[in-house]
């Protein structure tokens, strides 16, 4: 993972990956994550950055036992479809949770964790994952 092209590709998405910055359509108010430049709903190009709350619910999930390269050390891990409070649906890993604790509709909150680690001398990628909320 030393190729500069790839590093640049990851780097461009740090803001959305680290802290879930999405976009909001100034015309119709629809919120998107990942960010969009054009609103698919009304076609407007007037989009602004919006910080998402990171709160959501589990719609569905699976346990990944044969992960793609770069994720092997984390196996097994839960991967879930999460409906965010603001509407968008994201695919993300669940963390700090037992397999048998996961349920449909389970409330979760966003945390920033290590997503992927390339060989010993490569880049460490950080990004959003979700876990059961810590009150308050």
């Amino acid at each position, binding site marked *: 993972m030393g190729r500069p092209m790839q590093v640049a590709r990851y780097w461009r998405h*740090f*803001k959305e990956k680290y*802290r879930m910055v999405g976009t909001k359509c100034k015309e119709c108010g629809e919120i998107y994550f990942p960010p969009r430049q054009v609103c698919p709903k009304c076609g407007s190009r007037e989009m602004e950055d919006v910080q998402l709350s990171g709160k959501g619910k589990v719609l569905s999930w699976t346990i990944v036992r044969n992960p793609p390269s770069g994720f092997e050390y*984390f196996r097994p891990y839960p991967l879930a479809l999460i409906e965010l409070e603001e509407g968008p649906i994201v695919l993300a890993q669940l*963390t*700090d949770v037992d397999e048998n604790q996961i349920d449909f509709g389970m409330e979760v909150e966003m945390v920033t*964790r*290590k997503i992927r680690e390339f060989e010993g001398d490569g880049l460490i990628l950080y990004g959003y994952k979700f876990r059961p909320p810590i*009150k*308050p």
Partner: protein
Amino acid sequence: MGKLLKPNKEVGIVGYGAYVPMYRIKAEEIGRVWGVNSFPIQEKSVNNLDEDAITIGIEAARNALKRAQIDPKEIRALWFGTESKPYAVKPSATVIAEAIGATPDLDAADFEFACKAGTEALQASIGFVGSGMAKYAMAIGADTSQGRPGDHLEFTASAGGAAYIVGEKDSETLAYFEGSYSYVTDTPDFWRRQHEHYPRHGNRFTGEPAYFHQIISAAKGLMEELNYSPSDFDYAVFHQPNVKFPLTVAKILGIPKEKVLPGLLSGIIGNTYSGATLVGISAVLDIAKPGDRILWVSFGSGAGSDAFSLVVQDAIEEKRDLAPKTMDYVNRKKYIDYALYAKHRSKYIL
């Protein structure tokens, strides 16, 4: 000119936040593997597979922001104290700054001084804000520390951290600094050479001339400068590599145990190194009353101590509930055995 460190402007903590990972390993489980049966602590925290000093720092920083209720873009410096930085070369502080939305108009750097890196970042923050250079500065101390397998440090080296946002003192300030004092000498009690995985230590040498001498000198120096005696403090938090050392310090200084126990978490989470006193102080701020005075003394091998006197203000009452408390994290726990622990500490090579 006295020895006290005190900026021109009065400054204090406007937000604080802690984080401790949820996994725990019992000391007896480590002892089972190495054939040891007396332990310096009960259990310690272990980072999840996807956690490192940076992710711990991020969650602590977010909790501090929740309490401070300030715009992260107003933070002019983010200083991160750690001895377990994920990259040997590349700042960790920039990742945290990006993750909390503080970039790009700020200074960011990693601080190093064994376990006192966090309070060192705090001293710098006090100076940065106290001089009027910055409105806010954030100091973080966090570690996922490593002990050589089987070494006595393996029983205590744990994971956790806390973040503090320093601002000029006003009615929104949660607790203000009356002054601080730093004491350092060149004492080789603990070190890790470049490219080595695990630190080495001078065994018995770590106690007397290092830990006790620096902490007691710093605490006494601060009290002398401020004209306080131990009875002027309602709480005291000392660096906590185990349970015995900080309690011995309290005894030597004549501070009753009850004032130390609320901020002494090493027995149940271990030694979080750069995070140790910062997490202890956050536990105290979670319960302290306005007007309470807190003595805070860190220790870093190599060696030195930073001592602070903090006075809690009214604003603490309404702001402490804005983020999870230290004990919410301490009480959230899942026990793992030595095999899983080894996986969490990246001791397996695939």
